[in-house]
């Protein structure tokens, strides 16, 4: 198993729950869901941020994707609540 260096970025209340806007982690995840499982093990603040996946959206390398998307080659994964622009 090889690990991949991934920049994880957080926005809005996800950022507030995690406690910081960005970090680089070493991950063995192949999908977004596996990455979330790794993040949940990093502490109670992560468990709180990722408690309800239905309340989250994810972008891999700045493109909106679903939770079963691949992250093996990704350099940046972003987690955030549903967008409220306009």
């Amino acid at each position, binding site marked *: 198993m090889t690990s991949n260096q991934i920049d994880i*970025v957080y*926005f*809005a*209340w996800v*950022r507030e729950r995690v406690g910081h806007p960005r970090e680089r982690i070493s991950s063995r995840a192949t999908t977004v869901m596996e990455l979330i499982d790794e993040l949940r093990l990093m502490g109670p603040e992560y468990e709180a941020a990722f408690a309800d996946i239905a309340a989250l959206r994810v*972008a891999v390398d*700045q*493109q*909106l994707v679903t939770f079963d998307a691949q992250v093996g080659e990704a350099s*940046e994964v*972003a987690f*955030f*609540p*549903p*967008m*409220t*622009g*306009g």
Partner: protein
Amino acid sequence: MTVRIQSEPFDAGQELSRFTTQTGNVGAVVTFTGIVRSDGDNPVTKLMIEHYPAMTERAVALMVDAARERWSVTDCLVIHRFGELHIGEEIMMVAVSSAHRADSFEAAQFLMDYLKSRAPFWKKEFRTGTAAWVDGKLEDENALRQWDSEL
């Protein structure tokens, strides 16, 4: 086609005037301007808008491209602010020009629906003694269905 993501205020009237001058020989210009609104018993005093700088412009540009593929549009302008905004300030505007009005109306509506729920912006409302992130609305999500787009 112009997409501007900025923290600075803008003047929607001036922007419309410039857009209309530059767009040339068209029969229709449709614009929408979003304004910070105060409501309720403990009204909003200000908004903070966060965005995802690495993604925002590209995401909005893809929406503009999708609108141009779908309708016969001459020109488009999208301005969206981030940072701290106060009551009465302009949050964002969309302007679309075309030969006939139906294209401009529909393309502007399409862009607004996508900007609401697919552009990476998040609003936080500040009221006296409290602040809360705005929840995404089901009606906004449902509004996207009518377009049946891959975006």
